[in-house]
């Protein structure tokens, strides 16, 4: 019984989010199977990466501002938050968060006759996303903090000369310059956040009904076929594509952020090797 590749794609293309064939293929794996399922798992990596990034951006900005604050009550918590999440492995953070979430009462927390469900927090889509959100916030906050410290004095003096204060000064002068300075480093952060999402299903959070990410399926094939030489390079290929797409996307934003500068002065995005966290 051989299936055509289109049939396989329609059966397994959305398998990672529970749509399509329920059982994973057990034998007669073709290249099409591997490409389809691993690609299907990539949906999770993109979901984790993009949502954590989008939410983390705001917390990171707040943390960076808190870290520059002269008030210790604001500065100290931000410094500790950043140290804890940058100083420990993401892998351990996942495990710890999962064990903490499991400890929440299963029946939910009752507060003023209102029952708050807790079961969903141990699921990867919520729990792991939360950890990734906090983690990327800490890393991005450090990047934004560095950029905030590097805002040229002249810019601030110019803002003062225009009579800008408070929110207006931040919104019109400090924040845009910070973003411009931070953007190349923030691009790297985005790339290696997406790479870090591959840890989710290897770190406590179970994959319900075998709905996992790209690496989860790559490992599934490698374990079933005893042949690591096909599934892992396929997963690697997908991640190279995602990396290139991210560089392109962030490059567009970078050009927009620096559109007022003459061509030669525009900072080019320089992509550095990503690193584990």
């Amino acid at each position, binding site marked *: 019984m051989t299936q055509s590749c289109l049939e396989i794609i329609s059966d397994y293309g959305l398998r990672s989010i529970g749509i399509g064939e329920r059982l994973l293929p057990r034998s007669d794996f073709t290249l099409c199977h591997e490409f389809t399922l691993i690609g299907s798992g990539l949906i999770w990596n993109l979901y984790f990466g993009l949502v954590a990034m989008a939410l983390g951006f705001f917390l990171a900005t707040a943390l960076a501002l808190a870290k520059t604050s002269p008030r210790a009550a604001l500065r100290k918590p931000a410094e500790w938050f950043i140290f804890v999440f940058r100083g420990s492995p993401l892998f351990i953070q996942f495990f*710890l968060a999962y064990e903490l979430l499991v*400890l929440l009462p299963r029946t939910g927390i009752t507060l003023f006759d209102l029952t708050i469900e807790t079961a969903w927090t141990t699921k990867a889509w919520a729990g792991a996303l939360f950890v990734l959100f906090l983690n990327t916030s800490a890393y991005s906050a450090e990047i934004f903090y560095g950029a905030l410290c590097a805002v040229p004095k002249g810019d601030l003096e110019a803002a003062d000369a225009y009579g800008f204060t408070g929110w207006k000064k931040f919104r019109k002068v400090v924040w845009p310059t910070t973003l411009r300075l931070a953007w190349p480093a923030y691009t790297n952060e985005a790339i290696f956040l997406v*790479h870090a999402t591959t*840890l989710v299903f*290897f770190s406590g959070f179970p994959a319900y009904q075998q709905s996992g990410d790209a690496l989860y399926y790559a490992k599934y094939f490698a374990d*079933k076929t005893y042949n690591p030489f096909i599934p892992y390079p396929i997963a690697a290929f997908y*991640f190279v594509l995602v990396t290139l797409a991210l560089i392109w996307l962030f490059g567009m934003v970078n050009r927009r952020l620096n559109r007022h500068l003459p061509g030669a002065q525009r900072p080019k995005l320089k992509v550095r*090797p*990503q690193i*584990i966290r």
Partner: protein
Amino acid sequence: MTSGGGLRAPAPPQSFSQMFTHCADPSQLEGLSWLLCYLTTGKQFLFYGSFLIVIALLVVTAPVALLFGFGGALAARSPILPLRLFGKGYTSMVRGVPDIIFFLFVPVAMDQGLEYLRHLWKCPPSDAPVWANNEFNVCAAAKIPLSTSPQIWHEAYGFALAVVAFAVVFGAFAANVLYGAMNAVPRAQLETAEAYGMSPAQVRRRILIPQMWTYALPGLANLWMILIKATPLLFLLGIEDIVYWARELGATKSGIYAFPHPDWRVWYFLVLLGFYLGMTRVSEILLGRLTARLSRGQATMAGEAMRKAGA
């Protein structure tokens, strides 16, 4: 290589190697003395020992990765095209791909590669293909280590594969750093050396390599921090490291165990978190001192700031 897991029969109380005689019957103990006895059971000592495994991995991997990185960086600068392509390929390998893929791939690939070589050498020639029907078949004589060899060899082999995986991945990172540092050495220094009539090898050995370390140090320090934070990935390679023992010992222990307790994995993982935060902090302090030491007298911004502060 087999990954850990599966059910283990609870050991009877008398098999626990206890340090204190009053721990002989844990069911009679309460409070602090129960905890003290619990923390000195044989299994707990395996947990403490696994911290040494992590440190051993760091100590072994760091120099090997540096060596790999050195080779990669020199190859990427080589005038010979295939060597240069290899070096560039190696250094850019880790850019677009999550390293955990390499951690899963390299040990299995190494394991199968070695066993395949032994298969060609030791096994009687047969028509059966090695990779067939979703299986990897080599004869018993080609297995590494032999299935008859003691458990310690299996563990040592698994650890060695892990070290190679870490060294390959971190070697690629280090190659990137060192390649950049070699390019950062002022061109005039090398030209002066050439003007003195040194051969390319002499320029490399006497001028380039001694001078590049100042430029490489920030990157290498960063790498060291990352290497520390990558060590829990040992768990994925099936090694009984701190994550393995934290999960094993922290899990709920029912009454059939000598020391029953509820789910304590949170506490165990908090200990691991503390361990890693401590390692990071100590490294930060030591690397800060090293950077300060190397900046002394350098014609860089940091060196200039030091000179002014001293004056």
